[in-house]
């Protein structure tokens, strides 16, 4: 038990070192930072997203774990998060770095990162079918799981209203 606790403390220190390293590397690209446990979310401007991604890739973040979109309907933006981590570098594999950009909800277009990280190719296709975000420069932008006529409805945006049966009515 004591051994385990010591290990936890040590690894937390290690995580802090890595986070400082990432912040230093990205430098003036960083708009704002949010931190969690072993997780850091870095908001970057949309026109410098590719630059930041190349920098992270060169540091050793070799794959993207997931690609998430949040729909803020009142603000009028989609928040797109690329969660990158590492398989090969043991030090970097302790944390997950999330590159976050905000894009216009009415004209959802952004550059594709599939030539930098190959693992986002299918994830970008999935985001395309569920949210209708066009990734410019993507090699094969087709719906992945859904039938094309359902993909046109963009079923995971807030505009798509799911029919529900009233179960409890007062």
């Amino acid at each position, binding site marked *: 038990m004591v051994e385990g606790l010591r290990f936890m403390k040590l690894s937390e220190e290690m995580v802090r070192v890595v986070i400082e390293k990432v912040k230093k590397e990205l430098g003036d690209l960083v708009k704002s930072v949010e931190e969690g446990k072993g997780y850091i979310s870095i908001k970057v401007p949309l026109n410098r997203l590719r630059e930041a991604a190349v920098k992270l890739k060169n540091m050793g973040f070799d794959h993207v774990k997931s690609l998430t979109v949040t729909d803020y309907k009142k603000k009028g933006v989609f928040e797109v998060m690329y969660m990158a981590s590492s398989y090969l570098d043991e030090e970097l594999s302790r944390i997950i770095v999330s590159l976050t950009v905000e894009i216009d909800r009415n004209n959802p277009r952004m550059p594709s990162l599939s030539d930098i990280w190959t693992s986002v190719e299918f994830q970008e296709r999935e985001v395309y079918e569920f949210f209708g975000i066009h990734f410019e420069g993507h090699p094969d932008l087709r719906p992945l799981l*859904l*039938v094309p*006529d*359902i993909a046109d*409805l963009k*079923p995971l945006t807030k505009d*798509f209203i*799911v*029919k529900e*049966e009233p179960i409890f009515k007062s």
Partner: protein
Amino acid sequence: MAIEGVKAKEQGKVYVGNLDETAKRAKQLLIGRLKLGKAVDWATSFSLWPVHLTTSCCGCEFAAAWSPRFDGEQFGALPWVGPRQTNLIIIEGTVTRKMACAVKVTWDQMPAPKFAIAMGACALDGGIFYNSYNIVRPWEIIPIDVYIPGCPPRPESVARAIVDLQRSIRSKGIASKWVEEGVRPDKPLVAPKQDVCSWWRG
């Protein structure tokens, strides 16, 4: 329990049965009394081959129904590989829009006296996905003979459904009267209102 025609000192041993007596009875049953049509129904009802088409999570219960514990083969049905050699579809659970095409293509490939069982709440009327944008009710695409409710149904109820189907095949004479490919004697075959394979043909 004394078996008929067995000497007292031989009791307690395991016997297959009185083969001569059974053969005589089978001869009376098949040749002496029955019409050929009834024999066809009888034979079809005990050679049901469900195709391996697992649409959803009820497939686990479907697999368990043929495991040693529940032993579905004792009812005269065994899952088999290709649609060309099978005559029964058991739809296990939810059918998504893309899987609906696979179900329809498989159904079209099967030879004529063919039957379908819908298994699970999702196959009946959507289940927990009742308001989903991406599902299809299986009775809109193919004609269903027996429905099994439950989420998921137990393997015993799969066996019950198969026995039910066998009874209805024998009592209604579905297999013997089904001479033309597209004309079923007891009820019309369903023509799907929507084209489920449109995404595939492009």
